[in-house]
């Protein structure tokens, strides 16, 4: 384990959680679009990759899913953050900050040169 997709999956999960936390209930398509927008178009991945990530989070109990009607009155599966999901998000956010802080220290001197 530990190849690129895993890293991507991990960060994708964090993005999903964060997006759900700020936007509330959202369906898979909406999440994919939102993540794309938030990244300023820099992240262009297949929308489909979001679904295994959603399933994993659902299995962990971080998110819950329910079928409902979309803004255009279309049937869609909506995901919401659970309490466990909020805790997980807080934890992941901290750990991401730690990680980036550490990485930043490694990368900073190089930039200074």
């Amino acid at each position, binding site marked *: 384990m530990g190849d690129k997709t895993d890293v991507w999956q991990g960060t994708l999960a964090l993005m999903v959680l964060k997006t759900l936390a700020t936007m509330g209930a959202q369906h898979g398509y909406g999440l994919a679009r939102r993540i794309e927008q938030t990244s300023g178009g820099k992240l262009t991945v297949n929308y*489909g990759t979001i679904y295994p990530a959603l399933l994993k989070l659902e299995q962990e109990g971080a998110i819950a899913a329910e079928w409902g009607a979309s803004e255009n009155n279309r049937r869609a*599966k909506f995901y919401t953050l659970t309490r466990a999901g909020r805790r997980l998000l807080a934890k992941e956010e901290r750990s991401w900050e730690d990680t980036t802080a550490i990485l930043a220290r490694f990368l900073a001197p190089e930039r200074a040169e």
Partner: protein
Amino acid sequence: MTAIGIVGAARRTLARLGGLFRHRARERELAAELESHLAMHVEDNLRRGLPPDEARRQALIALGGVEAMKEAYRDQGTVPLVEHTIQDVRLALRQLGKSPGLAVTAIVVLALGMGSCLTVFGFVEAALLRPLPYRDPGRLLAVTESLAQMPRANLSYEDYKDWKAMNTVFTSLEAYNTGGQMLSTPRGAALVRGIRVSDGFFRTLGVTPILGRDFAPGEDLPTGPRLTLITYRTWQDRFGGNRQVVGTSVMLSGTAHTIIGVLPREFQFAPSEGAEFWTTLHADGGCDKRRGCHSMYGVARLKDGVTVDQAAAAMSLIAARLEQQYPDSNRGQGARVEPLADIIVGDIRPTLWLLLGGASLLLVIACVNVVSLLLVRTESRRRELSVRLALGASRGRIVRHFVTEAAVLVALGAGLALVIADAGMRLLVGLIPSDMMLTLPFLDGLGINRAVVAGAGVVALVALGIFSLGPLLVHSANDVRAGMADGGRGASGHAWRRIGAKLVVVELATAMILLAGAGLLGRSLYRLLNVELGFRADHLATVRVAAPGALFEKPGAAERLALDVEQRAAALPGITAVGLTSVLPVSFNGNTTWIRFVGRPYNGEHNEVNQRDVSPGYLAALGARLVSGRYFTAADDAGKPKVVVINQTLARTYFPNQDPVGQRLGDTSLTPGSITEIVGVVADVREGGLSQDIWPAVYLPIAQSPDTDFAVVVRTAQDPAAIVPALTAAIRQLNGDLGIFGEAVIEERIQMSPAAYLQRSSAWLVGGFAAVALILGVVGLYGVIAYSASQRTREMGVRMALGAGRSAVYRLILREAGTLALVGIVVGLAGAVAAATFMRKLLFDTPPWDVATLVTVAALLGGAALVASVIPARRAASIDPIHALRAE
């Protein structure tokens, strides 16, 4: 991992395992979700002004490879290894279902083999492997006296006391002897099984009562209080499990005994023969006081650091010292020390091992059979496997597929085998005669238990190894291209024929061993059941009468009772003759006495003879043959000079070329009261078991040697079983306090005697194994020959086209079969003689190389093999050469 992480992982695992079961629902839901995703994206694209086709195309591109995503989703949704295994199992089940005949055959064959093996293993485990339920049972010993004629003889109480005092090898030595007790109940007297033990008996075994207390030191002395412990079952059955029973009193044979405790539920002591009331010895009976009267057995616990052999040597020294000290009573009395387990299961041990051997051989045949079946199947699937390999299936996946298929077979077979074994054990235990069952308490409630399941697991693993290895070996020789090209013909067909032929030889040889074993056991059983009895066993019925000694203490009372019983019985319609005896024929050599002849030099040797106290009509009622002199009559009563009838063996041993009638004999010191005159010689009546030697015997008039415990034997004109109720009723009418038991028809009693029972059950069981083995072996042979013949169809066509006659083809096939059968039979014969030598001790009057049996068995197997090969040979010979040549 943090707490959340762990919880998350656990939840995920659970969900994924759960996902195994809601496979379809999840796929449907994902499809719906993706559909709604696409629809929303297409709508957005349309809104941005794309034409419909382009809108959909763009949406699909953005979504990415749907199948790859579904695969990822699927793998996330479940556990791939488990998923694959489930797929394998499904595939295996489907494959097996495609050829249900083969699958069912393989499973049934395996279940039969394993089931027989596990059934016997259940007995072996319960009797031989499970330790006795005592503290440190390996240190417990059976201690008895020993005679040249009787290696395991009873211990006299006086000797026991000396042995106990003098030995330095045991931490404790205890004595016991069994005997009936008359229990007074509100519904009259009932005979119950009892046992007398010395005070430290339970401490020596390491058994503590679950209720009340154990016997205390000194309580077995003649002056000690009358106490009894009861077994758990007796407590439940007779006293309703009432805890207040401790401290109450019961009347046993006319004496009040206080119940002081209840023995544990799991307590068992096979030599007690199902005793319900355990009392203390109180050595005050006539026999207990005489050093020459042997009535007990000893049980001892070995001191730490002492071996059984050292203990035996030490006890022999003590016995030798006593021999010098008391030459009159102790001449020739040695000591015997052996593990307690030996006297409990020693008799059935060789039979059980024999049966386990037989069942194992059957299992071997069964496994070989299943392997052959699987090999044939692998052959016919070579093409399929080659295609799968060519399409990119990994070797590992193919191997796993084989193993899974074997595992499914083995699991189903083993499951069925456990069911068979459970039923088999219950059936066989149920068939054990109840008297014999009392000496085998460890078989009580035998059925599937942990040990049997573990045994099944081991066998299943081995079988799994064999079954998956066989096809793999054959398959690994395959190469993909060849497999696809020729559709399973050619080189590997030959390879299979070679392997198949070897397997068949193994099967036939094993079947031969089992058949020979069964044949020898059958012959031995026949010999045993037809051994000369010395009397006419048909139309005889018996019942045993025991009177409470206390009620018949007055002089003449016991004598009177015997006469009354005899008269009552004789008066019943349908009874043609009546006799009484102290011991029934075909029971045991024992209840002996030492005799000495008047007017002959005597140097103190012990002339040990069976003593039977019988009524005047007894020998005639049995239908024994009088050789010379006369039987005694009613006139030979207590007031008359003592008389005795001897058997022919005694006459031959002590009066060679001499007429013993008129000679006199007495006890070892020729006490005046013991002198009796020989009035007749009777042809040997088999007093001991069927397989035992005839011992010299003396028959004394019951009137001159009265006893309150005797067997009534009646000869009937009609069915002897029908008379028993009337007989019992007539005796009960005489005196309500009499114990009446042991009702039996003599012929059945002989059939059910331990020697006959063991021999018969082993003969039948091994016979059953052999029959199954014969069928499996012959079917195996048929399979190989039929396969071989079908492989050679083209060859046959060519031969016939070139002018070979049908008979030549016939001969060709038969020769192939004949060679296999012959090799199998010859190898089997060698194995059979070896196996028979191993079981020589179990054969009665039958040598292990009994030519008639071996020849018969070989002919039987050869004949069956011939029949099995004639069918494919016929088919091969009757093919149309044109068709055969076109067949490719």
